[in-house]
């Protein structure tokens, strides 16, 4: 074995706390290490060259790099090794920044000791690493785009134009989404319908796009390159070949319901076309409003239709198809203003939402105003946004600008109007935004800094009085208005929640879809092949939405153009000589990836790499590649080796998806925690068998902690349940042997629970410090238990 160890200074981030020379020197003394260096920036070209040169000169066959978290540069260094002719899996990284110098910034001695342990652990593991090959899995050219708003439309067009086969699924009877409801768009005041309609038509006309409107996603199973999609096409109850769009049915239909396109300001019939630039421009019958479909009476439309196009016996159509990649563009819902009780929406007739005002402005522009807005109009900003009482703490990004737009359009429409915008501040961050805000002021719109506390209605005149403090003059204002417009924010749409649950997509604390990395992967998700864009990811305006939509299309294109994707080799595999085909693994694999013929066999495409199966195999024939029982045990031994009398050690097995990333964030935020903690990376905590945990205690660990993703965000089905079982087993054995069972713990974490992580580990550290240390006899007793129990 010829190992090269490199300790990075990270430009001071590590070396200012950790004594890098001491760590290098320590590493150099370990068996098998033939060269040990420390260097300013290992990730730089020169740093990488060091490694490449050493591989050649010293004929290295293993490399350890003590540096930042593998999250950032593992792929970098893996490429370095590949470039130098070494298998990329013969690399191990010791996280001595996020897990060491950063959280323990005020304890240089403890940090240096920990860094040595972590490097020792990496050396021990790398010795047992096998070269692994990434198998290629085919990825075809089929994309599912969920959502037909401007985001879905843009994405679908880019993908269709690039030659991919697109299914665009939209649950409304027309594409266009929210943008189709807008009047003009800021800051250029383009007519929303005019610029969107051609795109809507393009989407219908594109030969590579299969447009499915009035269609719901029932189920999506599978994985990148092999998604199985089932959708339900809702019946329109109209034969579209026979329908000529004459509209006689609509005139005769006796049912009137609120028109959702006009946000309840007007009514439509039960048989209707969504609006006049709908795509497809086709009629449909609303089965919840139709008298025949709900009560069995009427059928007037059927009688009057000249083309005999009404077909009440239509049924939903189930359609199944495959996709290789998915783009989620499920958009937003407007905030329900009734929730802000202080403003009286839903009770006071002259309080409207901005979305309703968009529709009113469109009607006014067409010469058919829906109502007289009166002379004095107020805009109240931040309704449902930036509001801890409502529970939406985020800013919805577009409201300052759409208020500047609507207010100046109303002012220009009738200069007699007296228009006010009441705000905490104005966010005009984008291209042309600040200039547009200035134009609104120039037009005569008045801005008052002050958040409106309450709106009350004069029961006789129905005029509204606002109570607000004019901050800058410290005056309390009670001002009467004819119309109040609530600048409502965005909330994650119902569709987004539904699809997120179906695809197991993670969410940010604000409820929108979580991107894989906030800076470098804003459109990827933690699920391979699934991309997000538009307001499903967070509130934004149209230019940003379109940019993200094209971006998501590009991300999907990268995968599909390659035609194949490398399969992560971290999978379970069977040591055939040890397998006696007992079949226990088959029933315990959460993804049913194992089948038994003469021996057990793991389907690599299905295997999730969680490691749950390794707990059950009584012969130790199942191992998780790159995280075998032997490798994990070697890490445990190495990281505990330096423990002295009177010291404590807490081992934390952190799942890479959530807990490991969380622990990195804790370090990045410089949040200190107990320095007796040693974190070991695993793909999933379910790979940690009771045997391994007991071995850890036998070898000197005082506490063992497993951190795992919340099940609904976890790519590993059943992991949480498996971990809880394993921990419970271990606790039972500890207790039987006179050791406090609470020394073994597990918790689910989300990537945002920084405080939770710190509190839990500090609590365990405190517990083991306050409890009397485990005497060697008891540790020895565990050893005996391990000999008896066999492999589990």
């Amino acid at each position, binding site marked *: 074995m010829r190992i090269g160890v490199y300790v990075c200074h990270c430009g001071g981030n590590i070396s200012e706390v950790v004594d890098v020379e001491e760590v290098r020197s320590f590493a150099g003394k370990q068996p098998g290490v033939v060269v040990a260096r420390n260097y300013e920036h290992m990730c730089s070209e020169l740093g990488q060259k060091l490694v490449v040169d050493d591989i050649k000169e010293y004929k290295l066959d293993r490399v350890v790099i003590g540096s930042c978290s593998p999250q950032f540069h593992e792929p970098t260094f893996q490429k370095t090794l590949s470039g130098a002719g070494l298998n990329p899996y013969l690399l191990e990284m010791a996280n001595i920044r996020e897990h060491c110098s950063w959280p323990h910034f005020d304890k240089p001695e403890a940090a240096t000791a920990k860094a040595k342990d972590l490097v020792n652990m990496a050396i021990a593991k790398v010795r047992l690493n096998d070269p692994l090959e990434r198998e290629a899995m085919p990825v075809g050219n089929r994309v599912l785009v969920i959502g037909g708003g401007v985001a879905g439309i843009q994405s679908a067009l880019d993908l269709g134009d690039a030659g991919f086969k697109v299914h665009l699924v939209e649950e409304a009877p027309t594409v266009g989404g929210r943008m189709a409801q807008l009047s003009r768009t800021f800051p250029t005041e383009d007519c929303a319908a005019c610029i969107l309609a051609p795109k809507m038509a393009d989407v219908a006309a594109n030969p590579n796009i299969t447009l499915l409107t009035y269609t719901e996603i029932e189920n999506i199973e599978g994985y990148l390159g092999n998604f199985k999609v089932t959708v339900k096409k809702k019946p329109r109850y109209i034969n579209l070949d026979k329908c000529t769009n004459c509209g006689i049915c609509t005139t005769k239909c006796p049912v009137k319901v609120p028109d959702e396109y006009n946000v309840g300001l007007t009514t439509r019939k039960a048989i209707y076309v969504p609006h006049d630039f709908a795509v497809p421009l086709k009629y449909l019958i609303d089965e919840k409003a139709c008298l025949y479909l709900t009560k069995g009476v009427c059928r007037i439309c059927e009688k009057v239709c000249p083309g005999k196009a009404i077909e009440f016996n239509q049924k939903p159509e189930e359609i199944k198809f495959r996709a290789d990649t998915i783009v989620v563009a499920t958009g937003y819902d407007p905030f329900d203003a009734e929730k802000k*009780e*202080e403003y009286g929406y839903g009770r006071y007739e002259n309080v409207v939402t901005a979305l309703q005002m968009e529709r009113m402005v469109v009607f006014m522009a067409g010469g058919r105003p829906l109502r007289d807005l009166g002379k004095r109009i107020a805009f109240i900003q931040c309704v449902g946004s930036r509001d801890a009482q409502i529970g939406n703490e985020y800013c919805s990004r577009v409201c300052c600008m759409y208020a500047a737009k609507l207010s100046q359009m109303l002012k220009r429409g009738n200069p007699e109007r007296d228009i006010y915008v009441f705000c905490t501040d104005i966010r005009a961050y984008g291209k042309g935004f600040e200039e547009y805000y200035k134009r609104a002021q120039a037009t005569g719109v008045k801005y008052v800094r002050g958040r409106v506390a309450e709106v*009350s209605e004069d*029961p006789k005149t129905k005029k509204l009085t606002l109570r607000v403090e004019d901050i800058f003059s410290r005056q309390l204002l009670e001002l009467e208005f004819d119309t109040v417009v609530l600048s409502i924010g965005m909330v994650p749409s119902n569709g987004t929640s539904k699809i997120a649950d179906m695809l197991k997509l993670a969410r940010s604390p604000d409820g929108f879809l979580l991107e894989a990395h906030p800076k470098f992967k804003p459109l990827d998700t933690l699920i391979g092949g699934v991309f997000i864009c538009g307001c499903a990811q967070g509130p934004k305006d149209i230019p940003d939405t379109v940019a993200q939509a094209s971006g998501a299309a590009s991300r999907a294109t990268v995968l599909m153009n390659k035609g194949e994707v490398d399969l992560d080799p971290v999978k379970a595999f069977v040591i055939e000589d040890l397998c006696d085909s007992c079949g226990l693994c088959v029933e315990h694999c959460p993804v049913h990836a194992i089948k038994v013929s003469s021996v057990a066999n793991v389907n690599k495409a299905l295997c999730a790499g969680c490691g749950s199966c390794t707990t059950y195999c009584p012969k130790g024939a199942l191992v998780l590649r790159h995280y075998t029982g032997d490798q994990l045990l070697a890490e445990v031994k190495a990281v505990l080796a330096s423990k002295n009398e009177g010291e404590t050690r807490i081992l934390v097995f952190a799942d890479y998806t959530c807990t490991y990333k969380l622990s990195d964030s804790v370090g990045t935020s410089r949040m200190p925690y107990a320095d007796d903690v040693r974190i070991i990376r695993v793909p999933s905590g379910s790979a940690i068998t009771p045997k391994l945990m007991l071995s850890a205690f036998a070898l000197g660990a005082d506490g063992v902690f497993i951190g795992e993703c919340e099940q609904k965000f976890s790519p590993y089905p059943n992991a949480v349940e498996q971990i809880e079982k394993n921990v419970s087993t271990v606790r039972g054995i500890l207790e039987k042997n006179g050791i406090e069972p609470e020394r073994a713990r597990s918790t689910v974490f989300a990537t945002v629970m920084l405080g939770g992580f710190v509190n839990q580990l500090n609590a365990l550290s405190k517990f083991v410090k306050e409890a009397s240390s485990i005497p060697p006899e008891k540790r020895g007793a565990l050893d005996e238990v391990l000999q008896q129990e066999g492999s589990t």
Partner: protein
Amino acid sequence: MKQYVFFLGCIMPNRYPGIESATRRTLKEFGVELLDMDGASCCPAPGVFGSFDLKTWAVLAARNLCIAEELGRDITLCCNGCYATLQEANHLLKTNKELLEEVNKQLASIDKEFKGKINVRHVMEIFHGDIGLESISKSIKRPLKGINIAVHDGCHFLKPREVREHGSSERPKILDELVEATGAKSVEYKDKMMCCGAGGAVRSGHLDTSLDMTREKLANMIAVNADSVVSPCAFCHLQFDRGQAEIKSHWNIEFNLPVLFYTQLLGLAMGLDAESLGLRNQSVPPDKILKKLSSK
């Protein structure tokens, strides 16, 4: 029905015992038994003594809570201020370990220890929760039809929402429902949720500011032809009742709007006489509402 210890506070026993009488009588009709809390003191008033020294406030509140803990029963009371103090102190002591330690250190000097074993429930919660609107409706012998009531929720029954369990503080329904169970109508009026002006040591420190708020509320109630104010708080009760006498003497404005505590209203509807409810011993005579009642 459950047993409760009755926390009296100051205003109700020492100025408006009619509220105490009405509450004892009406609760008795529903089988709710009230035990005395011997040796209880001022809660102490949250806006007054909480403003002077919060630690003292917490310790004195804890002493009162200990009396109830020793009796092993939940507390019920008739004042939003007492509710604010006892409910909030109870909650803080159950959740803030440092505060609990400090407070128990002080209580040790009188051989008491706060253990966090009981809960504090406003008497309105007893009526709405334990007894229920249906039972109340059934018990009405003299439905108050045609009587317009200006319901004044007060502040501390509902707020802060985080530490209460009554839902929205912008458009609450509990008290209106309780009032309407008697047959009376709860009328909408301008700034219904506004404070009466008594709390926060403002009544004692700045009476004019305090009374101006009361005046505004009363004017809004008169504007919608209310026959009476009904509140769940002895201090608001004092502010509206005694306050009308003070407003008359300071500013020569007269409202003549009777002020009833909920149980006094309920008592009338259950057939009890105005005398035993203490209605004739308040600053504003109850004639306006009694006349309307008798004319039915």
